[in-house]
């Protein structure tokens, strides 16, 4: 089934022309094998090899793109069931449900949330990804007005849902040229959806109330050569949604079932009227494999925990999240405020900064690049040691913003204080801080 990088390499031109963006054909082959590149990036591959490779190198779960340019996002392309095995690749898209029964105020408020609710965290921008437009009323005119309003307001992803094919066709015409999706094809309408996918260049969604029905629609898509599709296993409760998602992921990865080898969509918005319950459901389907998660609001208090959770679930388990090296001000420090040095492991930073903030003591954190290692790990790896820390402190510019030469080190590396002082020079004083971040408030207040 899946080919190794070497097997793929043998079928490539082996000219190392770099037209694909990679330095060598072998590097490109390795990426293909890992599902991290598309064969179409190589302009020189022979037709024969292309046919053979396309089938074999297609990821077990296809990648779908929604939205335009930088506002767009990818879902699918997943290769594992448990996140410790290998990273979950393309973070789920979060879409807000809007219908032609919602009043203007609701639509405007959510479009504003879609544009404005955004959080910066460890170098990532966390935000909602688009709109699920639903023809709830079954009324073409009001629905098209909604779709046009949404399309005019955002370049993010749009999924258009109606039970009426004519309405969908009209929406397809209106959105032609954009990366959007039409929802939802059943066994009876699969052929119409395939035709619309070709006509409007869009993604299509297969729907089935049972996995058998869903697989049957998926089979029709695959037979028609559809590459970008989404699976909707039905608008039921959390138990069924999770069960379907687990079954689909297993079928795609373990059984190589092409008809179920697409990302899925889930509807926490339809599972509860209670926002807190909806949030629990949304975050469970996020963790359990949904590619698109449709929610009732993109309100900030709901989106912050939900997008942070998405970031956590999709974090590379082999590479720790890191902070940029530098000086971080907490509680508006002055030139007299204390300076704490620690490593750039994101969790170290979060925990230390939260405690310092809670202490209300104006403080500066001097975050040193230790390849994302925690204090003790970085110390034993020789990265958070006196002869590396001293030059960093001197180049950090900290002496330009404070009028003292005192530096607090984590209690766990108390043993390096003498050497650190020596490396820094006589005018510096190294103070041993607490071992646990939780003891920082008490320590800072006692300085």
């Amino acid at each position: 089934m899946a080919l190794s990088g070497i097997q793929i390499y043998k079928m490539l031109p082996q000219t190392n022309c770099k037209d694909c963006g990679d330095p060598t054909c072998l590097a490109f082959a390795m990426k293909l094998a890992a599902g991290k590149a598309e064969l179409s990036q190589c302009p020189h591959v022979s037709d024969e090899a292309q046919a053979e490779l396309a089938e074999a190198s297609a990821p077990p779960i296809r990648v779908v793109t929604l939205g335009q340019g930088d506002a767009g996002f990818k879902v699918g392309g997943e290769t594992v069931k448990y996140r410790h095995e290998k990273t979950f690749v393309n973070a789920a898209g979060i879409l807000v449900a809007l219908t032609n029964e919602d009043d203007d105020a609701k639509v405007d408020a959510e479009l504003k949330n879609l544009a404005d609710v955004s959080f910066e965290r460890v170098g990532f921008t966390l935000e909602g990804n688009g709109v699920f437009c639903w023809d709830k009323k079954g009324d073409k005119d009001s629905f098209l007005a909604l779709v046009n309003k949404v399309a005019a307001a955002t370049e993010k992803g749009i999924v258009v849902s109606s039970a009426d094919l004519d309405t969908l066709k009209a929406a397809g015409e209106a959105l032609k040229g954009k990366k959007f999706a039409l929802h939802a094809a059943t066994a009876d309408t699969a052929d119409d959806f395939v035709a619309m996918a070709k006509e409007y260049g869009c993604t299509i969604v297969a729907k089935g109330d049972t996995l058998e029905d869903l697989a049957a629609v998926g089979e029709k898509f695959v037979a028609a050569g559809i590459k970008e599709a989404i699976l909707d296993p039905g608008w039921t409760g959390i138990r069924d949604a999770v069960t379907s998602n687990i079954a689909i992921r297993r079928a795609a990865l373990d059984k190589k079932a092409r008809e179920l080898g697409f990302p899925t969509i889930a509807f926490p918005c339809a599972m509860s009227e209670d926002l807190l319950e909806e949030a629990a459901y949304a975050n469970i389907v996020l963790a359990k494999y949904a590619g698109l998660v449709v929610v009732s609001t993109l309100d900030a208090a709901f989106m912050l925990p939900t997008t942070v959770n998405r970031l956590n679930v999709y974090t590379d388990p082999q590479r720790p999240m890191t902070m940029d090296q530098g000086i971080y001000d907490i509680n508006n420090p002055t030139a007299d405020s204390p300076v704490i040095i620690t490593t750039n492991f994101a969790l170290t930073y979060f925990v230390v900064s939260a405690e310092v903030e809670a202490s209300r003591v104006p403080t500066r954190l001097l975050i040193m690049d230790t390849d994302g290692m925690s204090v003790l790990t970085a110390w034993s790896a020789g990265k958070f040691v006196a002869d590396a820390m001293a030059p960093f402190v001197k180049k950090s510019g900290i002496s330009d913003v404070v009028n003292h030469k005192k530096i607090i080190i984590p209690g766990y590396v108390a043993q390096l204080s003498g050497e650190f002082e020596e490396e820094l020079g006589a005018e510096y004083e190294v103070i041993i801080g607490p071992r646990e971040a939780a003891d920082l408030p008490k320590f800072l207040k006692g300085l």
Partner: protein
Amino acid sequence: MAFQFPKDTYSGSILEIAVGSGDGIAKVGGQNVMPLCNFEGDVPNRALVAMEVYDNVAATESWTAEAKAPFADVIGDPVAWAKKCQDEYGAEMICLQLASTDPNDMDTGADEAAALVKKVAEAISVPLVVWGSESAEKDAEVLSKVAEVCDGMNLILGPATEDNYKKIGGAAIGYGHTVVAQTPIDVNMAKQLNILLGNLGVPANKIIMDPSTGALGYGIEYTYSVMERIRLTALKQGDEKMQLPLICDVAKYAWKTREAGISEKEEPGFGDLKTRGILWEIVTASDLLVSGADILILRHPESVRVIKKVIDDVMA
């Protein structure tokens, strides 16, 4: 080709553990499938929600007004607080946090702490978890005394760590209690502590594992994956030393985060504080439920309501 539901097979199951005594006995564990996979095996017991109760007022001083409000009339009275959680908020267990015994806090003595535990245990019918101040030496002293004073009540005592498991484990054996074995987010250390407790003579069905909780945004992905790996080892590889229920102390860590407590004035972009704080706890708990928690310790009544509903939905 007809669609076939791709079922997984397992070679082990989690031990079923009974906690509490008399009419208040509750069972956890016993499942032989991965979390949320009820469709391919047995899940005889749903996960349980414990609510925390603090033995000192100081511990609640840093709480947001929203987190404090549901307990305004009982803070300072652990017995009343525990009863309120059980009777009004539907707590399925109580977790008494002996925060005041911390040598850096009030340093409450073992006798006083044990007397309070007994009073709380006698006032409620649901099982009682007794949590030390996480000061290894002091916990050994306090929890040993608690074990003795509450002889035969089958409390859940913890956390026992590699630094104090002998004393806590020994006392639990002597007086018939269950032990929480806590390790710092590490699969191998978790197994090692279970082996050590076993060698000491603690029966396997008297141990519950605490893999240590990283809150949402503060390392939850580590806890999540360690729990999944513990469960895979227990169920797919049949490793008996890992076939134990999991307890997660959600409340303390979720509510301590910056996001759960910072005001809208300071972070206008973060949205309504009340919803945000409760959701920080709910989302943390949801992740841990998905990765295998059998007991979740929560703080806010709204979190308890929602997580109990979710457990009914996915496990019942």
